[in-house]
């Protein structure tokens, strides 16, 4: 087993100033990196190298979050997402989710390990009284316990699955979110979606919901040496479909272009208000190549 790396994410050598850009077409998704990179797990493929010790990106205070939600609502935001780190480590996660749900449909991305019966009850009550949908995305990288825990840490599989069961028992339909990190360890044939759906059915989870994400070579994973995008790479490509064209991330230090690059200087578009970040985003990082190639979005769909 490869030991956990402790390399912090770094900016690409290509400067953001010289990079091609994606236009800003309007705020559709607001992301809130509520716990920064503070997490109780230390997954081997984490895109922002989150972990339990000395997070390189600090958690946000509640007031910053409240201001961002108010500003986003005014701008006509369609969806709000809470991410980290692990959002349920934040002392005010529940009231802040509640507040966000008054403005827009809200999703929280969690590893599920801190969701016990009490949290599940609170989330179910919140979802029932909200005007809009509350979505809970629980990360699970493999249907196999051993393969999953090798990536996410001992016990992560059981706890995540238990969270899914607790939420399901209360009428919530969490979205199980996996990356393709262990894809190569399974025989070709049955696709990942089907494997996860079959697995969840076997575990008694009706109406299983699954989202699959590509692996990004940053954070705790080593860079893959891919050069950043050039204007030539983007010829004939509609840049307005990239998530940095209609999403923004509030995290410690300001407002950033996308959830993958939150906290990195090159992706920072504002050190103050959300509105100040409503401008073209530089496609400067090798991770932008993955978005361009896969058409992926961190949003639910």
């Amino acid at each position: 087993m490869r030991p956990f790396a402790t390399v912090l994410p770094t900016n690409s050598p290509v400067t953001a100033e010289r990079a091609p850009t994606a236009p800003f077409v309007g705020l559709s998704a607001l992301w809130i990196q509520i716990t920064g990179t503070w997490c109780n797990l230390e997954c081997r493929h984490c895109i922002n190298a989150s972990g339990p010790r000395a997070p390189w990106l600090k958690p946000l205070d509640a007031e910053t979050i409240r201001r961002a939600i108010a500003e986003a609502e005014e701008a006509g935001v369609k969806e709000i997402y809470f991410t980290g780190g692990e959002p349920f480590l934040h002392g005010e996660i529940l009231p802040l989710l509640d507040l966000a749900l008054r403005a827009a449909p809200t999703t929280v991305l969690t590893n599920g390990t801190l969701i016990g019966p009490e949290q599940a009850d609170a989330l179910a009550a919140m979802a029932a009284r909200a005007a809009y949908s509350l979505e809970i995305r629980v990360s699970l990288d493999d249907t196999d316990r051993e393969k999953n825990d090798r990536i996410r840490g001992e016990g992560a599989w059981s706890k995540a699955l238990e969270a899914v069961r607790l939420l399901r028992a209360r009428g919530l339909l969490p979205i199980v979110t996996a990356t393709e990190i262990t894809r190569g360890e399974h025989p070709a044939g049955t696709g990942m979606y089907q494997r996860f759906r079959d697995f969840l059915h076997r575990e008694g989870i009706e109406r299983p919901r699954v989202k699959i994400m590509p692996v990004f070579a940053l954070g705790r994973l080593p860079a893959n040496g891919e050069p950043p995008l050039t204007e030539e790479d983007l010829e004939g490509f509609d840049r307005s479909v990239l998530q940095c064209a209609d999403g923004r991330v509030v995290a410690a230090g300001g407002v950033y272009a996308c959830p993958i690059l939150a906290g990195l200087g090159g992706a920072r578009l504002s050190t103050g208000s959300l509105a100040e970040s409503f401008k073209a985003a530089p496609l400067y990082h090798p991770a932008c190549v993955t978005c361009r190639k896969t058409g992926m979005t961190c949003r639910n769909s």
Partner: protein
Amino acid sequence: MPQQLSEYRRIALIGGVYSNWLALEAALADARARDVEAVFCLGDMGGFGPHPDRVFPLLREHGVLALQGNYDESLASGRADCGCGYTDPRDNHYAAVSYRYTFEKTSREHKAWLGTLPLHRRLKLGPHRVLMCHGSPRVINEFLWESGTPDGLLRHLLDRAEADVLLCTHTGIKWRRALADARHAVNVGVIGRPENDGRPNVWYTVLTAGPDLEVEFVPVHYDHETLAREMEREGLPPEFAETIRTGWWTTCLENLPARERARGKY
């Protein structure tokens, strides 16, 4: 100079038809009996159902004023898929089967007509300035679900469009919202397939001008068994016919928000 808009008192709105020519026939007859001045269709004529070419003569005979949906745009421009944007291979499989069938069975003439349809229509309904679109005013295939569409977004879209009433379809489930400032948004539903509630009927919408806007969702009961049999005879997936018979969606569930998904069977 401000655009001169046609004025109406009562209109009928039909959402996605999805080749359900039997429901279209029934909805049009029902609308005529309700003294509507015009019938509008908000796009997506084909997909899912059998014999797509049977829809067009009905639209023509009844003078239906249509918009272009994403399916229409795809068919007209020869795109490789329906433009619904699924990522789950299961959803994509069914979407591809449906699109291939519809593409092959829609005449060149009808595809060309779909290409001429406008993306938006504006009119006045009494004092209300109405904007019609397929998905959202900004993106043809944007899903505006009831539990996924915040008031703030509706205000933003209405402001930008300088409209009081926003009408859309695309999701397949009707809803209405009266905003605090007396503006409205209505997803008019679809007549192509039932709305995932275990009942086989479909829905269209009648809007009547008044000091406030009157919104009536009208259930359409039609010969769904005949449609389901036609789908089977045409070799369309049995899962599609099951939806027509039972009212439960069996495919393309990926984009449903939690609340709408929880109401369905699958």
